[in-house]
């Protein structure tokens, strides 16, 4: 198949509106044409030509099911992928603080990368159980971070800063001498968040930070994250499969399916007017507690095997609205008029690049 992947064109007059493809001054991170594949017996294309932008002080939600490439994307952004994963194309441009310089994170080498991570971008991993070292105390683990990144600090300074961080995330300083297994899941997750904020990074990537937690604890952690984000004004990339949670906290949403961004929009637009059949399907499959009972519909089938070549739209086998071009042509990226940042990758909305107003 020789169809170029993105056959859309962008009229220059509209570039200013479609923020996803331009570098506005507020943009902090811009991911361009990023593709990742896992090489093996069969090559798995986990992330395909992903473009998006992260702005200062916003919460960007990335939603998708397991195996859709959302975690791979997070790892790729921070240049953490190792064999057998390879970044085959793209760049991740980071606008560095005051200087206004942009660096391509993917081109940073050892020492630079080491300095860059944690101070500029940090990450909160899914399972706080595994992210902490079970055999050393929290004090030691905090010290390790400071020793690695700022070797000049004295022991007293390190202790003081660790305690300040713990208090910042709402924990008692007395737990500093405890071991991870002595803490509850929620406390551990708070510790991991505190560690991610050691150097007040501009971007925190959170990969399913609340997935293993109880609903009530999850709510506590979310409140904490939002509070810290308001106070410290960092940007968050929040990755989860739980779209109902993202609808509440994020400013913008990327819906990923089979390694591609199926739809990107402001959160309100997804709630009021989700366009992609997959987005609609997910929205209809969440049981809610509020409002009238509505009919729930799941999405039949399962996500495609990314190691196979998928002609046409990857969602086609599960889509109730699929029609003839879906099986042969990759869906075009269609921007929604009058709604900046909203695009959808679906044949349903025609082959032109812009659909009419609401």
């Amino acid at each position, binding site marked *: 198949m020789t169809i170029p992947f993105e056959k859309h064109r962008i009229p220059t007059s509209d570039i200013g509106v479609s923020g996803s493809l331009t570098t506005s001054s507020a943009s902090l991170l811009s991911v361009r044409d990023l593709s990742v594949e896992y090489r093996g017996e069969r090559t798995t294309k986990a992330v395909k030509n992903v473009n998006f932008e992260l702005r200062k002080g916003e919460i960007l939600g990335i939603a998708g*099911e397991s195996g859709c490439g959302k975690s791979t994307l997070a790892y790729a952004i921070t240049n953490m992928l190792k064999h057998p994963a390879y970044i085959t194309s793209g760049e991740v441009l980071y606008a560095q603080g005051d200087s206004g310089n942009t660096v391509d994170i993917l081109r940073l080498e050892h020492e630079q990368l080491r300095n860059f991570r944690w101070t500029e971008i940090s990450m909160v991993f899914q399972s706080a159980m595994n992210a902490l070292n079970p055999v050393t105390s929290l004090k030691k683990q905090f010290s390790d971070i400071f020793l690695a990144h700022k070797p000049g600090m004295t022991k007293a300074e390190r202790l003081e800063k660790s305690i300040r961080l713990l208090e910042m995330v709402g924990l008692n300083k007395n737990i500093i001498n405890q071991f991870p297994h002595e803490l*509850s899941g929620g406390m551990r997750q708070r510790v991991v968040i505190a560690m991610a904020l050691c150097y007040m990074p501009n971007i925190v990537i959170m990969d399913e930070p609340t997935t293993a937690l109880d609903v009530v604890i999850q709510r506590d952690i979310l409140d904490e994250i939002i509070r810290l984000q308001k106070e410290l004004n960092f940007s968050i990339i929040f990755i989860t499969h739980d779209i109902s949670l993202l609808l*509440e906290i994020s400013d913008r949403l990327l819906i990923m399916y089979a390694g591609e961004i199926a739809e990107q929009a402001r*959160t309100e637009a997804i709630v009021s007017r989700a366009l992609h059949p997959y987005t609609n399907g997910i929205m209809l*499959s969440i049981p809610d*507690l509020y*409002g009238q*009972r509505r009919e729930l519909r*799941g999405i039949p089938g*399962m996500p495609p095997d990314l190691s196979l070549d998928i002609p046409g739209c990857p969602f086609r086998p599960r889509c109730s609205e699929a029609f003839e071009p879906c099986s042969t042509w990759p869906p075009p990226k269609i921007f929604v008029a009058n709604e900046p940042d909203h695009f959808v990758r679906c044949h349903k909305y025609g082959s032109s690049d812009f659909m009419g107003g609401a």
Partner: protein
Amino acid sequence: MSDLSFPTDTNQQMSPNTQLGYSALSYQGDFVSAASSRGRLVLEAKNLTKVYKLGFPSKDYISAVRNANIALYEKSVVALVGESGSGKSTIASLLAGQIPKTSGEIVLNGNSVNVKSNRKFRAYKSEVQMVFQDPFASLNSIHKVRHHLKRPISIHQPHLKKSAVEKEIYSLLHQVRLLPADQFIDKFPYELSGGQRQRVAIARSLAARPKVLLADEPVSMLDVSIRLEVLSLIDDLRDRFNLAVLYVTHDIASARYFADETVVIYGGDIVERGPSEDVTQNPAHPYTQLLVSAAPNPDDLGGSIRNAKLTAGTTKPRQTESALTSGIGCRFTPRCPFADRKCEEQFPPLVTISENRQVACWHIEQSLPNVSFKKISPKSQSTAEITLQGAHSAFGSEHTGSNHISHNVSDQFDTDGHSKTSQPAVPERDSEDGTVA
């Protein structure tokens, strides 16, 4: 085991009528499970209690489940909702006969069950089957789907010939919609997706032709888009196989859609039970209110938590182990906004507040300030009066638009079971929320 002196609840009376000092605001008829209308009673737990002894050097006990009464009816789903450590999985394991109970009784088809011998255990298992949370761990990765289904069939239906067993395997795969069955029968678990594995696990539990299915968080490891499929499969199977289903979950929203009765458990005690729609739309116990308010709300545009005043400590810290071992008082006390001395000192009994709702709280008047319960004599049950006006969640104003709750109370109380028996004498009007009448 039962002669050990546990610090359990000999002073706790399950009957509210004997409690002095309780402002008898209750409906005084018998409690009827919301699930009972579906069919015959199959499995019942009476005062089921499980006490774990803490290891050396501690001499303490933890009562993981205290005096739980749960009834499972044919074709019905009872949801058991609670946080981790609340004892919900312990109840499922007790009912499955996996762990020995400390006291109480399990009644299957009218017969008290004691699964001490292997033979009895196996006979019990052919009636009561369990589906586990993690389909990645519950299937043996070195065996094919065929093996997973063949074993239970040959154990529970030993008379079947080889060809009949094969036929049964295919029929099971059909039942759980793993189609075409030919394609799935010789697959290894690693070749299947999470949803498909859970279907195999469900098929395996159906192989024993059980009457009761205990599903312990069957969908929490699955993707959102797959969850509904598996839930509706279980929903469908209970009709086809006349199954009584216990659905253990931490997701109270799915209980709303999936279960007939929702039982909320906290710290090993049942704190609230009732028809799922009632419990989720009009939670009475402060803990249920906390659960409901903590659940993500997709309709909450832009997020009230983002725009809400940021107040710390709305949810108090989780209970410590010592509270679990002390055994007196309400276990929710440390986190409860209404807690007072009484809550610390006396255990709140489960009080029947309407035909099929029970709540264990000393402060129902405060947690449901706008509910007026009229004391009635047992003889005139038919005039039980329940007037509900936009119930206020203790936590509602922080996280959820309280208008959500109040709005829905009126919706749901028009159609629920009470309206048959309740004739509010003075229908109170509320200009904003509409009338409940």
